[in-house]
């Protein structure tokens, strides 16, 4: 299941690089996932209506 690293030097990032796209999907998830939290946080604030006037 886990593929060995074939690069010259095997670092943390190389191990995440498990065949097509694993590393990049991990990084994308890391970037996009917290936006869900931001979404619900903003929703809560909007519903409470306690936003500073812009």
């Amino acid at each position, binding site marked *: 299941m886990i593929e060995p690293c074939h690069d010259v030097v095997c670092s943390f990032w190389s191990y995440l690089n498990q065949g097509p796209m694993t590393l990049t999907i991990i990084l994308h998830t890391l*970037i996009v996932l917290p936006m869900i939290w931001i979404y619900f946080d903003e929703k809560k604030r*909007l519903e409470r209506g306690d936003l500073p006037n812009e």
Partner: protein
Amino acid sequence: MEEKVSVWTSNRFWRRSATWVTGVASVLLIFLTFDSMAQMKMGSAKDIEKKIDRRIPSPVVINYTIDYKLDPYRGHEIPIIGGEMRRPEGGIKSAYEKKEKFFGRDDYSEKEARELIHKGKLTIQAKNCMDCHTLLGNGAYYAPDLTKAWLDPTWETLAPAYNGKEYAIAAFLQDPPKMAMHERKMPNLGITKEEAKAVVAYLKFMSAIDTNGFPRNFGKIKGAVDARK
């Protein structure tokens, strides 16, 4: 009942998202850069003694034979420095054993080799090589790629007449129009004898950089025929 709100059209939501995305992407890039920089540090003569592969090897590789071969383990072509040996995991790697004379010597010390490629790199920049040629594939597209120029079959053909390909390349660099092979020729850039030697050393050193298999099938003129043999 709660008021219906639209987060998707809220400027605040997008501003926070933009800040988050930019920040985390930058931090990831910085971490990746630290890791890459460690892997891309120029190797030392000790590494070569211990047969440790480095992406960018020590310039003392100019003392060794250099080749570029398909390694089934890595899945692409890799530089083979000083002959090949079998990898324990399968495939092939550099043996760092077979030496060859470079301008009559095969015992350049680490210091000498570094000085040589220092001058070579300065000359490459000072003569604007990158605005006609590509180096590691980057540059202009008016002249051939120089990534593996050291291994180019053209020089193998010219080598005997010059007593070795390093002399052939150095002669060419000092007066390119004289040795021009095509209508589109390289101008005379006033490269001195020392500079030419240094540039050739740089080209040899560059051909030993592990470029993840770029360029593919280098030197395989007309499909299946390996012209480097």
